[in-house]
C-alpha cells in the first residue's frame, strides 16, 4: 500500500479522479444533459466541487497521521490545486454566465451581498496559495513562513462554507453537512496542536 502510494501511477490516478467531476460536467453540457437550466447546474456543480476538493485537501494531514500513511502528503498539493481549479471555474461561471462581465454590477454584488463577499474572500485567499505551491516557492519563503502563509486555507475553507450557508433560500441541511465536515477537520487540528504542545 505504502509503496503503491509512492508511484507515479498513484499520482496519475489521483489526478484522473480529481478531474472527473469537471470532465463529467463538460460531457453532460456537450450532450445537453445538465437539465433545463444548465448555467445554474454548472454554477452549483463547480461550487460544490470546490468545497469537496478543498475538504479533501484538508483531510490529508489528519488521514496521514491517523492511518500512519505519511506518503499521502504527495497528494496534498494536487488536491489544493484542484480546489483552486474548481474555484476558478466557479468564479468565471459567475463573472461570465451570470453577470456577463458587468463590472459595476459585480462590484455592487461584492460589497452589498454578504454571500458573494464571503465567496470572493474564499477565492482571493486561495490565489497566493496556488501561486506559491511550487517547491521553488517553499525554498524561497522558507518552510516556516511558507507554512504560516498556507494556513490561510483554513480561513478560505470557512469562508467557502459560510458562502454556501448564506446563499441557500431554506433548508440548511446540505450546507450544514459541509460545515460539520470542516468542523471535524478543524477540531482534529486543534486537538493535535494541544497534544503536541503538551508533549
Amino acid at each position: 500500500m505504502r509503496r503503491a502510494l509512492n508511484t507515479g501511477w498513484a499520482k496519475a490516478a489521483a489526478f484522473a479522479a480529481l478531474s472527473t467531476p469537471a470532465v463529467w460536467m463538460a460531457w453532460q453540457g456537450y450532450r445537453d444533459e445538465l437539465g433545463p437550466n444548465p448555467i445554474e447546474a454548472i454554477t452549483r456543480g463547480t461550487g460544490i466541487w470546490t468545497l469537496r476538493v478543498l475538504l479533501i485537501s484538508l483531510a490529508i494531514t489528519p488521514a496521514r497521521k491517523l492511518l500512519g500513511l505519511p506518503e499521502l502528503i504527495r497528494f496534498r498539493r494536487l488536491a489544493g490545486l484542484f480546489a483552486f481549479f474548481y474555484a476558478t471555474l466557479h468564479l468565471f461561471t459567475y463573472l461570465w454566465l451570470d453577470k456577463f462581465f458587468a463590472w459595476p454590477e459585480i462590484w455592487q454584488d461584492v460589497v452589498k451581498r454578504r454571500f458573494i463577499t464571503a465567496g470572493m474572500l474564499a477565492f482571493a485567499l486561495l490565489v497566493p496559495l496556488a501561486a506559491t505551491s511550487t517547491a521553488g516557492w517553499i525554498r524561497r519563503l522558507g518552510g516556516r513562513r511558507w507554512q504560516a502563509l498556507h494556513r490561510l486555507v483554513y480561513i478560505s475553507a470557512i469562508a467557502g462554507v459560510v458562502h454556501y450557508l448564506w446563499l441557500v433560500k431554506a433548508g440548511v441541511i446540505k450546507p450544514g453537512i459541509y460545515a460539520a465536515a470542516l468542523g471535524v477537520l478543524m477540531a482534529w487540528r486543534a486537538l493535535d496542536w494541544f497534544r503536541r504542545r503538551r508533549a
Partner: protein
Amino acid sequence: MPKQNSVSLPYSEVTPKAAYLSRRDLIKTAALPLAAFQAGAATKLSGYKKSGFSTSEKQTPYNAITTYNNYYEFGLDKDMPAVNARNFKTSPWTIRIDGEVAKEKTIDFDALMKLAPLEERVYRLRCVEGWSMVVPWIGFPLSALIKAAEPASKAKFVQFETYFDLKQMPEARYAGLPFPYIEALRMDEAMHPLTILSAGLYGETMPNQNGAPVRLVVPWKYGFKSVKSIARIRFTEKKPLTTWTIANPREYGFQANVNPEVDHPRWSQARERRIGEFGKRDTLKFNGYADQVASLYGGLDLRKNY
C-alpha cells in the same frame, strides 16, 4: 401546436389518459401493473378557449416545465418533484372553503371544474430566484370561485393552503419551511381577471410536480405566490402570514410583485434568465403585466411593500 377549440367537452367526460392507454395497450402491457400508467399520467383536455390575455412569446418546452420545479414538499432540488411526486394521490380531491363566507363548504374537484369554462392562458412565470418561463396554463379566473364562495363584506384577503401529507411528502422534513404552505392575496388581486386557478398545462391535466390537480397562477407576482395543489381557501379580514414571509421576512414580503427596481437582499432582480436561453433579459415591472395591474398599487410604496 394547434389546439381544437370547437369541441365543448366537460372536464368530467374526459377519458383519463391512464384509462385509454391501458385499453389500447392492454395486450402489450398485460404483464405490467396498471399503476405504472396511472401514476403521474396526464389526461388530454379539450374544449378550452384561447384567451386574449395570452402572450405570443415562445413557450418553454413541456419537458423543462415539468422537470424544473420548486415544490419543497417533494424535495429541495429542482429535479426532485418530478420523481418524488410521481405517485402523489390527487383523486378524489376536495377544497375546503371557509372563513368569512356566507356558508363554509367543501367543494370537490369535478364541481370546481364546472364553475367556469376552461381557457388557455399563456403566461410568463418569473421566479424570485431569477429565472423565468412561458407556460400555457389551462384554467379559469379565480373570481368565478370567489363569487361562488359568497365571501362576506368583512373578507379582505384570500388565503390559500396547499395540501400537506408527510406520508406522501417525506422530503418535506428537510425543506426548512413550516407546512402546510400558505399564501394569500388581497381581495382585489384575487378578483383580478389575470388571476386564475389552473388545472392543466400544454393541453393536459396538471402534472403532479406542477401542482396537481389545481393550483393558483398570479402572473405578475413571483412564482412562490402561485401555490400548488390547493386544499383550502380561507377568506379573512386580517392579512394572513404567508410561509416565505414567516421563514424570512426580510427577503420575502406579502406583495412579491415582480419588480426589477427592488432587489432581493441577496441578488439583483433587474434581469432574469429565461429557461432555454443563454443570455439574460431585462425583467419587466409586474412581469410585463403593468398595464393590467399597476393601478392596483397606486398608493403603495413598492420598495417597502416588497
